[in-house]
């Protein structure tokens, strides 16, 4: 079965790399957005699925990264890569701050606090419209000045590959063990010598950084930023993508995001109904397949003995 595995892998790679040539501009846009959501979703899966920190304020960091980069580039003429890096740095610091502030909060209180934080940030962005452009939007210099969006696709793909690679490396390291231990039982983790404070702050800082990176990419692609990117509805979308895919597996969450975004666009003709369907799918998944539909699918396929095709380890 080795040959089949390699063959499939190669075919997939060719497909992914040649994608912009194979589809029209509309679907290319969808793919680029899917890549954006994939990075955000994977970073949320790291925070909530792996480390057990159910933050509903994750989109605040997407917004923060986007606006930081956008404002620095527009107001000070900073080159975009520096702007994006500044966005990431800002998110790392604020993320660490939030992680530290929430140390004594567990479960639902953490969720409440972070969603409040996210809404406050959104309100500030809306109110301070002289600086941020408010609800009207902030014009942001695009990353590339080509007719086709293909460079964005490849850039996004590279960002996803790097981000996912780093996150996978992280969860496979001892830090990954510590994150999961904290998720399972914080008191026991402390008794086992895990520096809980340090790692809770770290996981917030790291996941927020990736969210900020994705935000920067998003801003400089879309060209016009609105506060909506940090809204609770966007958070809901990301949560849905992670949960439907499988919040405790980085791969499942990433693929979940890609598929969900594709699905949402494919059902475009149903307009608002697709979001209702999506919401219903989320509820059904939580209710009946808590580990995620993709994770469920992997399990079913594995039980039918197709080990060669599907990765054996459920983590990451």
């Amino acid at each position, binding site marked *: 079965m080795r040959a089949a595995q390699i063959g499939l892998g190669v075919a997939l790679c060719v497909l992914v790399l040649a994608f912009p040539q194979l589809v029209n501009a509309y679907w290319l846009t969808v793919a680029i957005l899917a890549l954006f959501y994939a990075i955000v979703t994977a970073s949320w899966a790291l925070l909530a699925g792996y480390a057990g920190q159910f933050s509903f304020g994750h989109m605040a960091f997407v917004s923060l990264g986007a606006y930081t980069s956008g404002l620095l580039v527009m107001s000070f003429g900073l080159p975009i890569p520096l702007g994006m890096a500044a966005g990431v740095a800002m998110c790392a610091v604020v993320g660490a701050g939030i992680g530290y502030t929430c140390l004594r909060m567990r479960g639902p209180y953490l969720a409440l606090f972070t969603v409040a934080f996210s809404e406050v940030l959104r309100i500030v962005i809306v109110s301070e419209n002289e600086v941020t452009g408010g609800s009207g939007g902030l014009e942001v210099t695009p990353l590339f000045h080509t007719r086709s969006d293909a460079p964005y696709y490849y850039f996004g793909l590279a960002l996803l590959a790097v981000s996912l690679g780093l996150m996978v490396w992280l969860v496979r390291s001892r830090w990954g063990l510590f994150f*999961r231990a904290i998720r399972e039982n914080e008191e*026991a983790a402390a008794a086992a010598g895990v520096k809980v404070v340090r790692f809770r702050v770290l996981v917030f800082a790291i996941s927020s950084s990736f969210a900020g990176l994705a935000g920067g990419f998003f801003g400089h692609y879309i060209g016009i930023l609105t506060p909506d990117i940090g809204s609770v509805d966007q958070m809901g979308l990301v949560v849905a993508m992670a949960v439907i895919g499988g919040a405790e597996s980085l791969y499942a969450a990433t693929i979940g995001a890609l598929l969900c975004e594709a699905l949402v666009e494919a059902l475009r003709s149903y307009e608002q109904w697709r979001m209702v369907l999506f919401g219903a799918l989320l509820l059904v998944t939580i209710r009946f397949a808590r580990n995620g539909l993709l994770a469920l699918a992997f399990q079913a396929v594995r039980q039918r003995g197709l080990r060669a095709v599907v990765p054996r380890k459920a983590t990451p």
Partner: protein
Amino acid sequence: MADAPMLIEAPMLIEARGLTKNFGGILAVNALDLAVRQGELVGLIGPNGCGKTTTINMLTGHLAPAAGHILVHDTPADGLSASAFAARKVGRTFQITQLFGRMSVLENMLVPGLARAHATWTEATHTARRHLDFLGLSHLEKLQAKNLSGGQQKLLELGRALMLDPEVLFLDEPFAGVNPFLRDEIIVLIQKLHAEGRSFVVVDHDIEAIQRLVQRLVVMARGAKIADGTVEEVRDNQEVLLAYAGA
């Protein structure tokens, strides 16, 4: 064994001076002095609610004392976190087993193994497997901790504490809800570990098991220490009898 006088020469591992804790209006632990020296096997008993678990929680960094001092190896350890106590080779188990349920048995062992400074995966895995072998859990290595039986879980928790290479181990009710065979097994394991040089403070309600195991017995009642001596000395102590009778 009435060998207490010889142990006075042994170095002090962990010491509580005037340790106090109150919850709201309730004084759970009242100015407790407790010292554990290297090589000791101490039993800590007392009626329900006398403050045993609270004392352990304070001596392992899980609870901050309201007053008093803690010293580890004669250096102050006030305000240290639980992970800091673990790093100082103070281990513990919990009254209700607290495992990493969705992680495998081996992973449960690797967490403390790798949390130690300068630990490598190979060393930690090797040590983990050695301890699992000692505990008779090797064949369960890949199983998720939540799927173990109650007794196996207790042993795994002990193993997890062992990964810290602890000098002193606080065991909170290791015999609770355990069948007689496993109880005997646990007693033997503790005795073997003690012979290796590890010190123990064992809290339990199973007086028979405690008596078989320990050299020194500390009795608490209503948050205070009311007796501290050999098993024989304590057994005849009037105050102790009254404490249990009245509890």
